[in-house]
């Protein structure tokens, strides 16, 4: 599963640490999600989407789509 978190973060000019603090997880987790090593839970995906004021579908894309 691909994601646009790095791009959205750059647009919003926030660091991985800022995003991690806003979502209540560690920086390692955000980094692992960005580099596609870890697929977040629905709750975390919704939290990330809320930070960027986007839908989960805008941030996360299934590879076969």
């Amino acid at each position, binding site marked *: 599963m691909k994601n646009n978190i790095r791009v959205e973060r750059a647009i919003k000019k926030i660091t991985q640490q800022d995003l991690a603090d806003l979502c*209540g*997880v*560690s*920086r*390692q*987790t955000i*980094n*692992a999600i960005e*580099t596609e090593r*870890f697929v*977040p*839970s629905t709750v*975390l995906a919704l939290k990330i989407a809320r930070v960027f004021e986007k839908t989960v579908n805008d941030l996360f894309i299934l590879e076969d789509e």
Partner: protein
Amino acid sequence: MVQDKTLREFCNSRYLEFSLAVMLLLFILLRYEWNTSHENTFLPLVDQYSRYVTSLLLVLAYGSAFFVAFSEEKQEDELVREIRFSSVTIVAAVLFALMILFSLLAALSQGFRLNFFTDQNYLVMHWISNILFAFFIYVIVFRVRLFIIKRRLKNEE
């Protein structure tokens, strides 16, 4: 509430983890010594009470192993939980595979009277089937994987 928080902080501290790990190692050494020596020269004073001491040490060791294995990280989020669960799976799979391998070797050795399966092999089998050993391997696997992820993060900005 304050006491609860202090207790939780103490339980999560590195000091507790380290001391319990040392206790665990000491127990393993002690048990190994008792298992391997023909005449118990180790701690002769405790010998007559060894059954009780062993029971007490077993409780301590399993308790400490549980604490060491499942004490929370500073920030226990879903990535850490994911690593934890996958580490348990890896350890279970590896230990089961080893048990199957050793059982097959033992069966071959006894069935065909080849006798290549020595007492030491049975001792290894005994250790593999011990849950304490599983805890120990799990802690190592979990720590190593966590260390790799943190190290990788250090290199990426």
